[in-house]
C-alpha cells in the first residue's frame, strides 16, 4: 500500500552534490545529487553495480569521493567525518561483528565508541529487535536474520538523526520483513531521516516516501512513488485487428505501442481512454476492452534499468 505523500520543509539531514567516484577507468558514481530530510524514508534503488553501496560508502567516509561533496547535518563528511557521523547510524550490506563476542557485547563495544549514553540503549534495543533472549550468545552462533537485526540495532545506538540501511531485510522471513518495515516507519515517525537501499521493491513501495533510481552511477529517476510510476501508466486494449488498431493509434500521436497476445499495450495519459475508444470505434474497430493500467515500481524499475537496446514497435 502506498504511503500518503507529505511534503514539509523538514531539515535536510543528508545532502550530496555532484558526488563522483572513479575506480581507475570505471565510473561507479557519476554526479549524484540526493538528499534526505528528517521524517522521510528515501529509497535508493538500482541494479547490481549501480553504485548504491559506493554512494553509501562515500556518505560514511569509507570511500573518498573523486569529486563532489556529502554533507550530514550540514557537516562535510570529508572534512569533519567523525563530527558528521555522530548523527548517523548505518547498517552496511554485510553485517560484521566480532564473532567471539556476544550480541550484547558487540553492541556495547560500539556504544562505548559512540559515547553519550549509548551504553544505556543496548538492552532496550536488543529487546526492540527481538534479540533479548539471545543477547548473551556469541555472534558466530547467530542466524542470518539475527545478524541483520543486530546490525539494525547498532544503527540506533547513537540516537541518530540519519539512519542508513543497506539491504536490511536480507535473510529475514516474511514476518521479519514486516517488522523491519514497521521499524523503518517508526524511525521516520521519530523524526529521523532514513536512506534505504534495497532490492525488495515491494518493500520500498510500502515504506518509502521518495525513491531515487540509479543506474551506472547516474540518477535516472527520482521523486515520490506516484511521480516515478505516473509516466508508466498504459492502456491494455483487447482487439482482434492489432495492426489496424496500431495505425489508428499512431494517428493520435501515440508512439509507444507493444503487441500482446490479446491485443495491444499502449503508453498514454490515463485521461485519453475515451479518445482512444472513440478513435477506434469511429474507424469501425471495436475493442473488447480498454483497461487503464498503472505500472508497479517493479515495472518502472525494470524499464528504467534494463540494458539499452534499439527500440522497435512490433505492431508496425
Amino acid at each position: 500500500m502506498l504511503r500518503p505523500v507529505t511534503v514539509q520543509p523538514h531539515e535536510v539531514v543528508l545532502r550530496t552534490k555532484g558526488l563522483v567516484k572513479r575506480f581507475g577507468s570505471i565510473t561507479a558514481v557519476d554526479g549524484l545529487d540526493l538528499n534526505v530530510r528528517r521524517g522521510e524514508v528515501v529509497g535508493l534503488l538500482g541494479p547490481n553495480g549501480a553504485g548504491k553501496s559506493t554512494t553509501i560508502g562515500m556518505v560514511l567516509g569509507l570511500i573518498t569521493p573523486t569529486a563532489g561533496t556529502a554533507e550530514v547535518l550540514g557537516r562535510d563528511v570529508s572534512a569533519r567525518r567523525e563530527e558528521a557521523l555522530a548523527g548517523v547510524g548505518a547498517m552496511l550490506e554485510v553485517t560484521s561483528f566480532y564473532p567471539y563476542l556476544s550480541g550484547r557485547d558487540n553492541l556495547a563495544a560500539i556504544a562505548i565508541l559512540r559515547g553519550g549514553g549509548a551504553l544505556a540503549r543496548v538492552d532496550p534495543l536488543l529487546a526492540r529487535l527481538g534479540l533479548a533472549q539471545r543477547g548473551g550468545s556469541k555472534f558466530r552462533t547467530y542466524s542470518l536474520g539475527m545478524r541483520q537485526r543486530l546490525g539494525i540495532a547498532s544503527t540506533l545506538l547513537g540516537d541518530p538523526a540519519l539512519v542508513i540501511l543497506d539491504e536490511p531485510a536480507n535473510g529475514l522471513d516474511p514476518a521479519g520483513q514486516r517488522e523491519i518495515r514497521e521499524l523503518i516507519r517508526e524511525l521516520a515517525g521519530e523524526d529521523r531521516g532514513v536512506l534505504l537501499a534495497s532490492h525488495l521493491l515491494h518493500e520500498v513501495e510500502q515504506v518509502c516516501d521518495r525513491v531515487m533510481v540509479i543506474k551506472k552511477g547516474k540518477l535516472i529517476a527520482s521523486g515520490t512513488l506516484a511521480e516515478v510510476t505516473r509516466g508508466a501508466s498504459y492502456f491494455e486494449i483487447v482487439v482482434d485487428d492489432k495492426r489496424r488498431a496500431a495505425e489508428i493509434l499512431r494517428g493520435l500521436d501515440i508512439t509507444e505501442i507493444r503487441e500482446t497476445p490479446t491485443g495491444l499495450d499502449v503508453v498514454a495519459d490515463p485521461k485519453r481512454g475515451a479518445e482512444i475508444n472513440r478513435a477506434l470505434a469511429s474507424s469501425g474497430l471495436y475493442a473488447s476492452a480498454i483497461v487503464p493500467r498503472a505500472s508497479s515500481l517493479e515495472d518502472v524499475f525494470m524499464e528504467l534499468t534494463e540494458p539499452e537496446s534499439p527500440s522497435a514497435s512490433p505492431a508496425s
Partner: protein
Amino acid sequence: MLGLIVVTAFLVYFLIWASINAQLQAVKNGTIPTPAEGTAGLTETLRQIAPDRVAQFGVGIVSGLGSVMLIVFAASHVGTEFGWGTFRTLLAHGASRSGFLVAKTVSLVLYAFVFIVVGTLAAIGASYAVSAVAGISFGTGVDVAEVTRAAAKSGYTFLPYMALALAIAVWSKSAGAGIAAGLVVYFAEGLVATILVSLNKDYAQIVNWGLSRSASALTRGGGAAAAQDPTASTLPDPTRAAIVLGVYCVIFLVLAYWRLRSRDVTVGG
C-alpha cells in the same frame, strides 16, 4: 598465549635438566663414552638452569619464543579486523582510522609488556623449581635488577618485529600475510646477516643497520654467550642499535598509517 609461555618456560627448563642429567648419568654408567672435552660442558649447560643465570638463559628463552609468538599476535590482532569486516563496521560507526591504529598499537605494546613480565616471572619460577628438583645450587639467586634490564631490552626488541607484522597485515588486509612476512624477516634476516658476517666481517657495516643485528646487540650481554659467538665482536653499539630499532618501529607504523588513511574501505576491509 600467556599461558603458553608459562608452560613453555617450565617445559624448557625441565627438558634441559632431564636431557643433560640423562647424558651425565649415561656417561657415569658407561652407557655412552665420555666426551673428549669431558663433562664440564654438560655441567656448565646444566648450570644455566640456576636462578642466578635467569637474566641470560631464562630471559633468552622468553625472548626467542616471544618474538615469534608476538609476531603472530600482532598480525592477527590487526589482520582479523579486515577478515571479519569489523574494521569497516567500526569506521561506519564513527571510529577514526588513526584512532583505530593508535588503539591497536597501544594494545600491542601493552601486551608485549605483559608478555615479557609473565614470561620472565615464569622463567624465574621454573628456574627455582627445576633447580630445587635437580639439586642445583641457586647460586646468588636471581639478580632482580639484571633480570629487569635483560627483560626490558628483550621486550624492546619485540616492538619492531610486531610493528612490521602490523604494517604488512594492514597493507595486505590479511593476518596470514602479516604472520608469514614477519616470520620470514625474523628468521631469514638474522640468518643472512650471520652468514654474511661470517664470510667477511666488512659486511657487518651493512647488516648492522638491520633488525636482527640491532636486536642482538641490545640483548647480547657480555660473558659466556658473547664469547662463544664469533660474530659478537662485530655487533653494533647497543645505544645505536636501540635507536635503529626505534626508527624501524616508526617507519613501519608510518607506513601502516599512510595505507590505512589512503585506502577506500569496501566490503572485505
